[in-house]
């Protein structure tokens, strides 16, 4: 065993040593004439020695000094060290190594290639990107070396593409074939462009290239469909959140609340206030968004309860008056917020775990915050259903909705249930505001843009049915996003509105119509 180890070391040592020797042997070239400098830079760039990046960067920044005897010094701010070696040195008598444009160009290329080996992942990604775009044969060995050490999957994928593209640009036919199938296995539009570009130069490989392009196209198609679906579901989840509270107040109670959008807006502002209030408490600051959920619920629910007890209660059975009254209240809330917080948008930052994008198979990109909101909206839906189905309050609420007088006779305090139900629906609106603050501008008229869509969702899904609200919101979201590429954002919206009007012709009570006695009201 030890003998084997020794043998291995013996085998490896010269390799290592040769690399080092080559590196050190090349260094004096950096202090030579411009032509020699450029050549040296090129060779250092392909050597793959990690120290090369430091010295080349110093050269490019003018921080590389040379003594009259030809030894090199690295200046880093005030500190000057010998290179290679790293011992502190005195800069007296040394002068910066000068370079010209030709050397500068060589440096750019070499540094770009060398950053393939950089310890910084973002830098490696950028380098892979750059190499992919340049597609030069001399990059192949370096790319192979970099690939062998790379551990981040996304960067690996990028490097493999770059390698394939480089091989396709300059290689034997076999290597080209392998490269084509590697490119064809990706789902990148750039790979597709590279293949199309190579088609002219490689008539013999035409069939392979065609097949690879077709494969990419198929995958891009799937990706586009998946992304549209996700965007649609994401819009649907926003609509669901905004409409869920309405489904309770309008759908279950039959009270139309035009100030619903303002409750959503209040929720978003509560998120902003929580963020500002917790900013200076390091232990709580990262949790301001989760903490804003109950806070927004309470704020909006309190406003809702006050509005129901103070105003709406007097207008039961007169829906049109309720509509006007709540519209007026909404107007006042909006103006109060505008005066209190200013008319401009307020910044609510997303916590780190909600930022960035997630890459799914086929290169489908999904923004984290929208994914969270989608999940969040479903959780809120489930909690709402649970509250209505499983709790004492939900039971009383259903009893009052179905038959107010009998419920009252059974000892249920109907007035209290009305107030709680309205507060509950308003609170859900507040929660919607927390979610919306992550993707929309927090401004006083945040709610206005959602109110009409939310009513459409409730009417389309069927008044009084939470399942209808879910299906209605998701359908409207997906239909909107599917139409958008063809018709544009505005026309898609107009089209959906017209479609709902026509749909109501066929099914005036919505998708999930209540059947039996409840429908007669």
């Amino acid at each position: 065993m030890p003998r084997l180890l020794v043998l291995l070391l013996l085998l490896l040592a010269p390799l290592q040593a040769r690399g080092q020797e080559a590196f050190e042997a090349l260094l004096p070239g950096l202090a030579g004439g411009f032509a020699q400098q450029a050549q040296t830079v090129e060779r250092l760039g392909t050597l793959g020695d990690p120290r090369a990046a430091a010295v080349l960067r110093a050269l490019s920044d003018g921080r590389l000094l040379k003594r009259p005897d030809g030894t090199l010094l690295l200046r880093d701010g005030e500190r000057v060290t010998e290179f290679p070696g790293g011992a502190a040195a005195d800069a007296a008598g040394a002068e910066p190594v000068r370079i010209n444009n030709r050397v500068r160009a060589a440096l750019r290329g070499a540094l770009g290639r060398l950053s393939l080996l950089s310890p910084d992942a973002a830098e490696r990604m950028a380098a892979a990107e750059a190499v992919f775009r340049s597609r030069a044969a001399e990059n192949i060995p370096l790319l192979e070396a970099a690939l062998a050490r790379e551990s981040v999957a996304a960067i690996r994928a990028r490097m493999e593409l770059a390698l394939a593209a480089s091989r396709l640009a300059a290689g034997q036919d076999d290597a080209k074939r392998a490269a084509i199938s590697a490119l064809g296995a990706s789902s990148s539009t750039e790979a597709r462009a590279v293949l199309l570009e190579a088609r002219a130069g490689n008539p013999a490989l035409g069939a392979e290239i065609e097949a690879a392009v077709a494969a990419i196209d198929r995958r891009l198609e799937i990706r586009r469909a998946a992304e549209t679906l996700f965007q649609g579901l994401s819009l649907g989840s926003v609509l669901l959140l905004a409409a869920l509270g309405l489904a309770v107040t309008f759908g279950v109670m039959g009270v139309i609340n035009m100030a619903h959008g303002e409750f959503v807006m209040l929720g978003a502002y509560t998120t902003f206030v929580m963020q500002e209030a917790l900013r200076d408490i390091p232990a709580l600051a990262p949790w301001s968004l989760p903490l804003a959920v109950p806070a927004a619920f309470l704020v909006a629910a309190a406003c809702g309860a006050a509005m129901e007890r103070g105003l709406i209660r007097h207008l039961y059975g007169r829906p049109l008056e309720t509509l006007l009254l709540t519209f007026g209240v909404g107007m006042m809330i909006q103006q109060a917020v505008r005066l209190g917080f200013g008319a401009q948008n307020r910044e609510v930052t997303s916590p780190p775990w909600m930022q960035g994008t997630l890459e799914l198979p086929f290169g489908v990109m999904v923004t984290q915050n929208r994914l969270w909101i989608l999940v969040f909206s479903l959780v809120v839906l489930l909690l709402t259903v649970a509250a209505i189905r499983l709790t004492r309050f939900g039971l009383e609420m259903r009893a009052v909705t179905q038959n107010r007088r009998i419920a009252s006779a059974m000892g249920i305090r109907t007035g209290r249930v009305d107030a709680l139900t309205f507060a509950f629906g308003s609170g859900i609106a507040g929660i919607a505001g927390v979610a919306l603050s992550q993707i929309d501008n927090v401004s006083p008229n945040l709610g206005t843009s959602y109110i009409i869509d939310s009513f459409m969702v409730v009417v389309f899904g069927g008044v009084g049915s939470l399942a209808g609200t879910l299906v209605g919101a998701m359908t409207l979201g997906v239909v909107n996003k599917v139409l958008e590429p063809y018709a544009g954002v505005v026309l898609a919206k107009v089209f959906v509105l017209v479609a709902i009007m026509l749909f109501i012709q066929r099914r005036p009570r919505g998708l999930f119509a209540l059947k039996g006695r409840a429908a007669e009201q």
Partner: protein
Amino acid sequence: MSATLADPADSRARLGFRAGLAGAVLLLAALPALNTLPADHALHVSDFIVSVTGKWICYAILALSLDLAWGYAGILSLGHGAFFALGGYAMGMHLMRLIGPRGAYGHPVLPDFMVFLGYTDLPWFWRGFEHFPYAMLMVLLVPGALALVVGFLAFRSRITGVYLSILTQAMTYALMLAFFRNDMGFGGNNGFTDFKELLGMPLGTPGARAALFYASLIALVASFLVCSALTRTKYGRVLTAIRDAESRARFLGYDTTRHKLFAFVLSAMLAGLAGALYVPQVGIINPGEFSPGNSIEAVIWVAVGGRGTLVGAVLGAFSVNALKTWLTSAAPDLWLFVLGGLFVAVTLLLPRGLIGLFGGRRKGRDA
């Protein structure tokens, strides 16, 4: 019913009421005349008063049309601003065509915004708008046709109450989004402006202002007379019956759909007329007129004045707008609180509006 009509006290009150109305109309009619008096005369009325009153008269016609739909047919339209804006756009198209080669780009036919957007010839729906009678026809027909389609679809499937309100709000919202688009051929978010003349009168002169003022006043009086005559016919009585108990009216054999549809279309045409008179007075029309907030504001005029009375609608339009004009210059931040407060106060405390305060009697239930 007939007994109350024959009541001498009632007929005296009616006479006094009519005299009051006539006096109010005469007072309004005197404004442009007083404007021509020298500026230091005690009775001189400023240009501002005349132009702002001219606007209010157009609002009053809009309120009247809304009262016909809401107060008599029970259709709370939250989209009447759309009919108003469509009438305004039809008039705006006529005014744009009259600019002719005097635009900034000097194109002989195309309005400036079309030259700017790279149009080479006039879109088909712009043809004919250079003729005043055709444009006036469109002022009535376009809102009327929209109301016919929306009303037919809605009333046929018995969409009533708040559903109908939200539907009409969605209608004006959708139109607003559509008119904001540049490729609609209506000038995008800038709309139409820089009008030069109407029927040979250069706009913006005192003469044109007075002429438009009188035209609006005549339109208001005529609309009022038509509406009040209509509501006193058998048709009007059936309409009120539908408002108060639609199913009962239907079971009695009345075609409620057709009755409501007629009222809605007529109302939309009146709103279009109001918009057409409004645009040359303010000199601009843009998609902002479609915003749902405008329609809701019109509803509050009617509610404040007292709905189902016609006079109340006109009174409401004048009083709320007077308040708005005063407040938006005196305390702009307060205006939205006051407007919102009006919604709350009127629905909770004054369900019959200002007219109710004066003890005007109204028969029938609240809709």
